[in-house]
């Protein structure tokens, strides 16, 4: 009896750690990428960006993006987007000094309404730029929660620079690497 209970407990614990379905076939998937400048908000190191799938609706709408410092900002991308409507949903970061980071988690949510920031509609598999933006803190009252605004980034790296950077990571996914190379050939 105790043994069974133990297995059930293990299964429950493991299920609570479950993450999204792993994508192995990228033939019908697209690369979505963008860039964020966070110099004018509290966080100075981004560690997560989530992309949300609006259409078609799904039980697993969140796509965690790879995030890396790039050209005075942070480049984010995922190679797993299916056809549909997607938008950059949120970015999370910390305030760090060298290798020491504070324990405050800063979450910048772009909301689930509106297509002004990081929204794309994928009709066929390919390479999609989700935009380059600057996050800027907005002054609020003492009792009000922090706010930020999103502005188009004027100092963003070019699409070519971003794609060349992502290409370094795409060797394991030949179909996406090929699409990036095709896109690079079209960019001036």
């Amino acid at each position, binding site marked *: 009896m105790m043994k069974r209970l133990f297995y059930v407990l293990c299964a429950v614990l493991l299920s609570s750690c479950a993450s999204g379905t792993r994508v192995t076939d990228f033939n019908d998937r697209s690369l979505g990428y963008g860039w964020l400048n966070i110099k004018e908000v509290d966080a100075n190191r981004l560690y997560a960006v989530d992309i949300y799938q*609006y259409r078609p609706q799904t*039980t697993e709408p969140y796509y965690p993006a790879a995030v890396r410092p790039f050209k005075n900002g942070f480049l984010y991308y995922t190679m797993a987007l299916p056809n549909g409507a997607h938008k950059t949903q949120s970015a999370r970061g910390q305030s760090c000094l060298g290798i020491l980071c504070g324990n405050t988690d800063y979450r910048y949510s772009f909301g689930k309404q509106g*297509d002004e920031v990081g929204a794309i509609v994928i009709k066929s598999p390919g390479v999609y730029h989700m935009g380059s933006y600057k996050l800027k803190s907005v002054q609020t009252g003492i009792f009000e929660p922090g706010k930020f605004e999103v502005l188009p980034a004027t100092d963003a790296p070019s699409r070519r620079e971003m794609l060349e950077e992502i290409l370094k990571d795409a060797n394991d996914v030949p179909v996406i690497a090929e699409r990036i190379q095709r896109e690079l050939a079209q960019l001036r």
Partner: protein
Amino acid sequence: MSRLLPLLLALLLQACATPRMLPAATELKAGDAEVVVIGKIELVPPLSPLEQKSHWNVVGEKRMLGHVFMATSADYKPVATSRLDPSEFQAALDAEWGTPFMVKMPRQRTYFNGGMAHLDVLAQEQLWFPGHVYFDVPAGASAVYIGTLRYHRNDFNSITKIEIVDERKDIPLVLKTGAAEVRTSLLRRLR
């Protein structure tokens, strides 16, 4: 200093305000200063369960998901959509999406100041809907039908179109008898 204290108290009390809903009506009886209002609010395409996240540990969540809360008042004061301010929802219409409502409202020209629907109560994710409409109460009317306020949205939940539709067939759904006593006074757009 004695002036500052009441001001501070007022500010603190305002911060503690909770939304207040308009009372539901079950029949056409209303007080002298009230009117029974019948209508409906729709969203096209409708919200699906996949878009709304529920949590077992959020009390009262079932009364919030699948509903739209429309701020109303005697003056037009559009709600701030950057954050939920309960003080703007002190006379809020709580309507289930796509289901006719019947509530008691003050007998006066009433403005819809903007609506809000929860996607995730815990994470405070909401959708916002513009108001910018009003209705009048005809003299002597004890009940008015204001029509269907229909919002259309795109893939990213931006509101792309607002319609006001006359669907008087909804009245018998909320009122078993006395439909003839209900005067039509459809919502109108503000100019």
